[in-house]
């Protein structure tokens, strides 16, 4: 019954397995954007090394077990057997009745133990070495501290020490460890950049940390890896690893105001989008403000998902510097952006924007095509001027127009800043979102003790949360008028004075 070890079938099996190896090797495509092979940082490299060690061990075990199995099947096949259902029984000599062999049992218990020990030791080493970045004395190699906040369905990136907030595209310097604090405001997400490091989850109430480091500059693709709801498959992001010089340039550009924009898009944006999207994270104190307001936006939604008018949303400061929209889904260009504003579900179904924002009725935006184009143009203008010219004084073109009266200028500003979309100016004071403004000047006189009507109105424009009219929620009005020129404030007040019976 026992055949030669090197039979023809054995050779065939060997050839088969060699073919399988090549197949497996071809299966790993290190050039693919999210391949976990050919990783580019110390964390990813460590993880890849461990996998490859286990992979070859597994291949060895696989080859041995499967070839023995096939060998057994071929070698010990029974050629004759009784035919069921008939009385014909071909006499068949039962094989030797072996019940077991303790020596063998011990051997094949101990061999796996050793193999596993060979994996367990580097595993534990790697667990600890990938947990925290190596400590360095060098000031310039101190880790960059970043906070990643997961939202349904996009990522917010906060540079804690630099005071910068951005979304969906993370810039990091090469050759320097990046410490990441992982937080989530809603459900569980997972932060994963396959080319740089394995994933760590973002769990509400659990502040996780991870660290990454990119050794070569480049754009790395990342994706949420924990099922988080309807748009989980569309929750992607990019990591731009820049040389330290370029990274510093990026930091500076994020602190520079954009080129002033002329056109109705600005007002439309303020009226329709600014309740959730921040665009001014270059101003001082903006970091703390953004953290606070993002939290309030989310609380608004959480306490009443059906009736909420706002929800946490990506910061759009210097949007035009980014390469993608829809959280890493689509290339950023005018055409895509128009489609996105028109109907976000064209690219991404289930966005909170479509669900919460007042401008969406059903799936479509209630804005006209020209209005959407205007907003798009405005958004695409959101980029810092070339850094060389940033030191020169910025010209303000907005007020260059000649006005006949401050009231006229005020009326123009009132519409172009989008005040009318939240505040009614009719006599019946229909409630839109904010308080109606009919007769506001008369009422302002006695609103706050110690403030004249002018002072009160200026405060309400610049710092709306200082005094909140009863029955209206705090923090709804965008905090973007803090730095309006005095002249504009004056003309706005002049215009508001006209809203009266007198």
């Amino acid at each position: 019954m026992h055949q030669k070890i090197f039979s023809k079938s054995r050779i065939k099996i060997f050839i088969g397995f060699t073919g399988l190896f090549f197949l497996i090797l071809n299966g790993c495509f290190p050039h693919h954007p999210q391949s976990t092979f050919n990783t580019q940082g110390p964390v990813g490299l460590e993880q890849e090394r461990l996998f490859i060690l286990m992979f070859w061990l597994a291949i060895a075990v696989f080859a041995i077990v499967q070839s023995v199995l096939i060998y057994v099947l071929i070698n010990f096949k029974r050629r004759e057997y009784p035919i069921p259902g008939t009385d014909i029984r071909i006499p068949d000599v039962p094989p030797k009745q072996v019940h077991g062999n303790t020596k063998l049992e011990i051997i094949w218990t101990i061999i796996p133990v050793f193999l596993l020990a060979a994996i367990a030791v580097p595993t534990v080493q790697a667990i600890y070495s990938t947990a925290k970045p190596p400590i360095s004395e060098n000031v310039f190699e101190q880790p960059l501290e970043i906070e990643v906040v997961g939202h349904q369905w996009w990522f917010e990136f906060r540079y804690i020490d630099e005071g910068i907030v951005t979304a969906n595209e993370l810039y990091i310097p090469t050759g320097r460890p990046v410490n990441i604090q992982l937080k989530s405001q809603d459900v569980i997400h997972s932060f994963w950049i396959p080319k740089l490091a394995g994933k760590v989850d973002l769990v509400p109430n659990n502040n996780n940390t991870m660290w990454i480091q990119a050794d070569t500059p480049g754009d790395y693709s990342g994706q949420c890896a924990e099922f988080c709801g309807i748009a989980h498959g569309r929750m992607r992001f990019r990591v731009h690893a820049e040389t330290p010089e370029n990274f510093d340039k990026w930091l500076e550009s994020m602190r520079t105001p954009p080129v002033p924009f002329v056109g109705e898009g600005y007002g439309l944006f303020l009226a329709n989008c600014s309740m959730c999207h921040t665009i001014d994270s270059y101003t001082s104190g903006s970091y703390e403000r953004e953290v606070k307001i993002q939290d309030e936006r989310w609380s608004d939604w959480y306490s009443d998902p059906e009736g909420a008018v706002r929800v946490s949303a990506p910061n759009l400061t210097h949007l035009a510097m980014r390469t993608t929209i829809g959280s890493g889904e689509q290339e950023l260009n005018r055409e895509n952006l128009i489609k996105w504003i028109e109907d976000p579900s064209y690219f991404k179904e289930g966005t909170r924007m479509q669900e919460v924002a007042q401008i969406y009725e059903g799936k479509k935006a209630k804005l006209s095509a020209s209005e959407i184009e205007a907003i798009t143009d405005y958004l695409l203008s959101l980029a810092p001027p070339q850094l060389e010219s940033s030191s020169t004084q910025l010209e303000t073109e907005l007020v260059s127009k000649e006005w006949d009266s401050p009231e006229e200028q005020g009326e123009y500003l009132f519409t172009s800043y989008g005040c009318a979309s939240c505040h009614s100016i009719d006599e019946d004071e229909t409630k839109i979102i904010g308080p109606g403004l009919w007769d506001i000047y008369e009422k302002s006189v006695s609103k706050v003790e110690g403030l004249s009507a002018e002072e009160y109105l200026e405060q309400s424009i610049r710092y709306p949360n200082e005094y909140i009219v009863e029955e209206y929620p705090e923090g709804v009005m965008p905090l973007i008028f803090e730095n309006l020129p005095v002249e504009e404030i004056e003309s706005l007040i002049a215009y508001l004075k006209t809203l009266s019976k007198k």
Partner: protein
Amino acid sequence: MTTLKYPTFIPRPKEEYSGFLGTIWSWITTVDHKKIGTLYGITAFIWFLVGGIEALLIRLQLYAPEAKVLSPEVYNQVFTMHGTTMIFLVVMPLSAAFFNWIVPLQLGARDVAFPRLNAFSYWTFLFGGILLNLSWIFGEAPNAGWFAYAPNSSFPYNPGYGVTFWIIGLQALGVASLAAGFNFLATIINLRAPGMTFFKLPVFIWMTAVVNVLIVLAFPIITVALLQLMFDRQFGTNFFNAVQGGDPVMWQHLFWLFGHPEVYILILPAMGIVSEVLPTFSKKPLFGYSFIVFSGIGIGFLGWFVWSHHMFTVGLGPAANSAFAISTMLIAVPTGVKIFNWIATLWGGSIRINSSLLFSVGFIAMFVIGGLSGVTHASPPSDAQQQDTYYVVAHFHYVLFGGAILGLFSGIYFWWPKMTGRILNEKLGVAHFLVTLIGFNVTFFPMHWLGMDGMPRRVFTYPEGMGWDLSNLISTIGAFSIALGTLIFIFNVFFSTRGPKNAGNDPWDARTLEWTISSPPPHYNFAEIPEVKYRDDFWFKKYPELAHGEVSGASASEVNNDDDHHVEMPDLSYYPFFLSLSIVLILGSLLDLSWNGSWYIAGVGILMFVWSLLGWSFEPVNEETSNQKDH
């Protein structure tokens, strides 16, 4: 004992019902373990087809980038229901079908310890499965994944009926599994044939025992987790509400503390089947019986200490991750021991290659691949790249499809003659095996590459340019090959039903007690309870000359199975059916507490519950028996 007489409102069902309705009534009131096993098997196979269609829908949606076969919402529902169905409605009840059919027969018993409880398990399983799938009618099937991680499964992120359906459906299935778990453990402990000590038990019985210990201990945990989630959703408690200080990770701990033993609940029955099939067809005793038994117990035991390997990326810290990595790797040792012993069983045997054996060998081959890929993500740093990717999908399909399902198919081909008296067509069986095995590998092997290529799980589509297109296309083609294989099996079943009942008592020259009686077995199984001398008792009775080295002793006398000696079997009962129905009605009424109709449904359910519980308690097992005792 007139004291126990209790007024019942419907007369006690009798055996002699005829006609279509009578047949249905006889199935509803049956307490026969074989009939209940058949019900389990047929129901589970229908769910298998449903789950398979869901799998095909998933593969269709993913066949190419940006495909629009399913919307994201429907895709989420489909993959959630695919997982839930395959685990709770297919593999577990299909295993239960074998427990029901085979355990009493292999033990030499006439039925399980509690026949009515057994019927109750089946009906609760059936109604629970129906309740779960009713969600499709509402258009709101569960959509939070079979793991339903809070808070994605809680308000306000997941309003609607979907997750509630999932909770109440699983509660019903949990009740069914627990009842069956108690029953089979009691059966195995107390109804062994005289002489059948624990170390003479067939390995299938051993694995059944381990599985049911796991069920009895693991299901209360998921029950609690589901109750907490339900209270959060329906009554506004804060168990997983992060805003009030609740911890979403708590859900994961509870879920995986159940979920990992559950994995062994799924795979161990198949391991038991393989341990019966291999010795039979190689005509050798199982190699290293006690090592296989103890490694099965070891797997069941270690299974309690590894749950956090599902949570390596949750951020439990390096110390916890190291501990769970090592405990997880340890599980590979008993698993390896089993594999080596199975191969050693075949070694030197006289192997009869047929479809049952091929499925068992396929089980070993595929399970080795799944086990090895499992080791690669037992290591947290490596797992950080693989967690929640298609690599994991590949891994668990290699153990659950390549393992559990192939093993269960092996059992179907093996025991089909005993259950029906007919042998399944061999050529079609081999075709079924080959198409399934090849289709399976074509489907799931490329998923290893997809995962290592960075494709996450549970995404409803993927963009172009990621390099995932070809592998996904191949995988979809493979999925349809598996469907083809299943069609061959269905055809085989219908084709073989037309053949004569010529299997005889012992078509495979097999080893255990079930093959001593006729096929299909009589209602009472054994006219005389057999006495057991050896492990593989029947084999050594047939070939006493091979019993060299076995415990000596005279062989038991020949059993005469033609005369039923007026064996007293428990009477039929409809109470299990109505008790199950009432439980599912009560659970169903929790779906929407704001709807007034719920209260009526709950009321009807509670009344029916009280009536059937009391009726069951006071109903004598056997009218004749109690009457006789009165005299």
